[in-house]
């Protein structure tokens, strides 16, 4: 279990929140709340456990696509930097 910070929240302009049934911490998204439950609190009920597992699965799927984008971004960043340096050295050398 992860030790939880005692956060200060600001709900101004936020219409809907999902509160953690154990510690009351509010979240903007249901998935955030479900993930928090599994990470922060032990002995979940069966429903909570199922929700945590669903949320983890959805997060893993999203993370996969996110990481694809990261790999592409890293590739672009790397190759454009190398190209830029090559061009500069070619021009000034």
């Amino acid at each position, binding site marked *: 279990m*992860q*030790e939880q*910070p*005692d*956060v*200060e*929240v*600001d*709900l101004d302009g*936020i219409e809907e*929140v999902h509160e953690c049934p154990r510690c009351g*911490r*509010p*979240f*903007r*998204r249901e*998935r*955030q*709340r479900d*993930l*928090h439950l599994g*990470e*922060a609190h032990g002995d979940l009920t069966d429903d909570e456990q199922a929700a945590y597992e669903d*949320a983890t699965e959805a*997060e893993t799927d*999203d*993370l996969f696509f*996110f*990481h694809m984008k*990261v790999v592409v*971004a*890293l590739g672009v*960043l*790397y190759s454009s*930097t190398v190209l*830029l*340096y090559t061009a*500069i*050295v070619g021009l*000034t*050398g």
Partner: protein
Amino acid sequence: MREAGRALLAGTVAAVVAARPAAAHGIAEAGATGSAPLWVVLLGGGAVVAGSFLFATLLTDHEAIRAVNQWRLTLPAPGSVFARGADALAVLGVLALAAVVVVGLAGPSDPRSNLAVLVVFGLWWAGYTMSVYLLGNTWGALNPWRALGRVVPRQEDRELPANGDWPAAVGLLGVIWLEVVSPVADDPRLLAVVVLAYTVVTLGGVARYGEAWFETVDPLSRVFACFGRLAPVERTDDGLALRLPGAAAADWRRGEDISVPLVVALLWGTTFDGLVATPPWAAVAGPLVDAGVPAAPLYLLGLLGGFGLFVAVYRGAARWSRRTAESTVSTRYVAAWFVPALLPIAAGYHVAHFLGFLLRLAPSLGAAATSPLSPPQVGFLGLPGWYGSLQLVFVLAGHVFAIWVAHGLSFDLFPGRLQPIRSQYPFTGVMVLYTMTSMWIISQPYATPPGV
């Protein structure tokens, strides 16, 4: 002396980023072939920071991140060693303070050979500060005012206000302002007077508020406590623990002695100290000073204006982070949560700014230490041309560490794996801009700050 130090500091870097029109500043014509123009170096620096962030996002396991940041190697050591070490350091600190005052008043008036100036600006603010963030925070033991505070009569009849964040930040900005506008680094007598004044204020504070003065108000103690969080060596109940650099900063919890204004003041103060010695500052401040604007308030305005800008940008990033992370956590909380990530940046900038300064002064320090009242004349130590690129590497390394510290902090604040990453978009953006700004300042040739 500060000028001489800064001039060399700037000159060596300029040799690296040399493809700029050399005639403009009359520097660094050597090495222009094949080296990149400044803007390319800056873009490259920004790319390294952005790339580090992208790499960090690949590590998303809460347990693994925490395992890295909480890894410790305990080195058992008996408490008596620490007690004796602390006593020895306290004696050393008091002797050094006495030496600074005596030599400052009675020693040679040339700052380049006066031990007081060399000790305060070279050995202590450049060298000792590095030991705090590279090794461990020993200031609690060395602090001469703490030792002297034990013997002053105390009333301790006042409680410090609960929110003591601002006095230390204001004190720090005040010290930086004094260092920039007054000839305190060039006039040993003035330095001795300033040190005595600091002593009087500090001991007065201790007499009134007790040890809490050092934990709350005293800017030096607060700065070293912050920097000490980056150090790999940590004092524990059983002895010493070895940690990864920056891990203690990633582990910092709110409620402990952490302060957004102080850390931002530290970061901005180091930046400002470099900025005033650049040609663009001279181009802006020079005409104003010539037109009769007094320098001291002008620099104060610049210092406070820049500080306000830094605080606003940092708070803006925190507010924006709340949005990108879709979080209910308040802006104030987010800002305070991530502020330890600014410390490696401040430390990286400090090394870049002061390591060369310390090395150059080393021969003078040695000479002045052997004979404080009539030191032999020695020259400055020359530094190789590649030292300039090393400075840029230090700035970059600070930012890369900062990315890692912020990454660890984000996974402790937000659940899941995407929310913590998304919370870092604004901070990373600001950091990329700041990397390029500070690399630009470091690479500027030295220009005498106008009017001071």
